[in-house]
């Protein structure tokens, strides 16, 4: 009960601190999400129905991942630079709550972009979705995992390094990860690597959640994702507990 209260209060703190930039952040999120759909459309031309589903479901996955892996570390890096992170860490708050409150704030901010990305995908590629009832839980699993990885990275690395890595990750996720295209297009070694990395399972999960008539979630991928989730939350909490 106290934990929930503290998480909400911390989220309120973070939310209000970002309030000036909020409208812009939401606009940029929406823009990126729709631009991903439309941009892929330009690259590909008229895709086959199956591939159209890849594109339409890939956009929200990319939005979810980018919130955790890119925006969370940037905010943490910023608060480290301005000096508020250390002071916040002197408050009697269990360390995981910092992660959860950041996650809550950024997930809420990403929500409009994610939904509009799905809508844009449906309209642009004329696909019909079949949404699974567990899509919300799936989205949560994906965003917790990516935010935990992002938070651990930003807590342990110097701010400048964290910023550069997050920018590199954008390109890797957009172009070299089977999110918006099938894994068999990748060179063999990279496809194998992705079987052990978290992003492909994330994409598979969201894809299956949005178009369950066409895709299913392989059990192995779910196990890989859950392992990553547990490891990254433990890593992020360890990073937050770290003392100089």
């Amino acid at each position: 009960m106290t934990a929930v209260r503290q998480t909400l209060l911390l989220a309120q703190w973070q939310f209000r601190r970002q309030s000036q930039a909020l409208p812009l952040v939401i606009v940029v999120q929406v823009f990126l999400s729709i631009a991903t759909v439309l941009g892929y459309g330009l690259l590909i031309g008229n895709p086959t129905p199956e591939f159209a589903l890849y594109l339409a479901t890939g956009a929200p996955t990319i939005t979810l991942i980018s919130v955790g892996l890119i925006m969370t570390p940037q905010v943490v890096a910023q608060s480290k630079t301005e000096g508020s992170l250390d002071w916040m860490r002197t408050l009697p708050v269990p360390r995981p709550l910092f992660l959860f409150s950041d996650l809550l704030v950024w997930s809420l901010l990403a929500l409009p972009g994610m939904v509009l990305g799905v809508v844009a995908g449906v309209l642009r590629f004329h696909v019909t979705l079949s949404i699974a009832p567990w899509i919300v839980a799936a989205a949560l699993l994906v965003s917790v995992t990516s935010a935990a990885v992002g938070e651990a990275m930003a807590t342990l690395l110097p701010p400048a390094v964290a910023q550069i890595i997050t920018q590199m990750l954008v390109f890797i996720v957009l172009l070299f990860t089977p999110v918006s295209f099938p894994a068999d297009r990748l060179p063999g070694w990279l496809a194998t690597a992705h079987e052990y990395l978290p992003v492909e399972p994330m994409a598979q999960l969201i894809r299956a959640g949005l178009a369950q008539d066409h895709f299913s979630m392989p059990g192995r991928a779910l196990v890989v994702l859950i392992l990553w989730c547990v490891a990254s939350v433990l890593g992020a909490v360890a990073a937050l507990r770290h003392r100089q």
Partner: protein
Amino acid sequence: MTAVSTLTIRDLSKRYRGRSGVQANDGISLDVAPGSVVGLLGHNGAGKTTLVNQVVGLVRPDAGTIRIDGVDAIAQPHLARKLVSIQAQSNVPITGLSPRLAIELVGRIRGAARGDVTRRTEYLIDALDLGPWADTPAEKVSGGIARLTAFAMTAVVPGHVVVLDEPTNDVDPVRRRLLWEQIRILADDGAALLLVTHNVREAERVVDHLVVLDVGKVLAADTPAGLAEPLRGALTVELDLTPGAAAPAWPSIVTPVADAGPGGSRLRATGTVRPEDAADLVRWAQEQVNARRIERYALTPASLEDVYIRLTGLEQTADGADEGTARPQVAADPETGSTTGGAA
């Protein structure tokens, strides 16, 4: 000190890794009892902030113990944090919030009920005369108001131990008084206060005990009166030298504290003199003014600041280090009751 200390630090040592490898704390021991204010004095880099960061679990000591209400703060930093509230040395950025909202949110995050927090916030805003800025967006308030807000964020739900790192920086003289009053009240209400400050003159009136740190070690620890004992009854004489003129040699009645640097690199000299020699000294100093060897002189009762400068500054001079940069940073505060003379 007393046996019922809330904060007990023993043989605390911390060396930062890396190329510079600074030994920030080197065997520090100190106690802070409930209801008392312990002042922590020292140059920039003396190890004060490292010490407080270990108390709140941001920095891990290499050796030594920290106990807060009997809790081992090094093994259980999460329990220690519940017992400590800290005002950090740099201001906590609160852009997007107002001072009132920031104070209230911190109070509630620290676990107090909303109604209590609202009342306590209102009290602190009133006591520190923050009213006119309480609901202003934080990006529009001055550094001094931000500093007072940071203090209120620390004091809204105070821990058993309250650590204040330079609370008076940037605060105007009127509000500084209000702030000292609140600091004293926190202690009178039973908190154990550890106060890091450069503002020796003002702290003197509030602290019960002083610990002087230098290069990570405790140089001296005593009550203000105990520390000032060696200089009891002595007067401090300060000379502002004329640029370009040769510095006059002190008369034998003066004990030098800090001399002009070689080749007149420093334009100030300080010494102490016994009260019975004051008249002779004033005569001598006035001659120097008339001869244009010095610009002005001042004779003041020896203060804790002089003790502090003696303890830390003299050592540096004796080592042949640049005394000019080694001098502690003290608040330039017009001191009342000083005798000042100068060229007419």
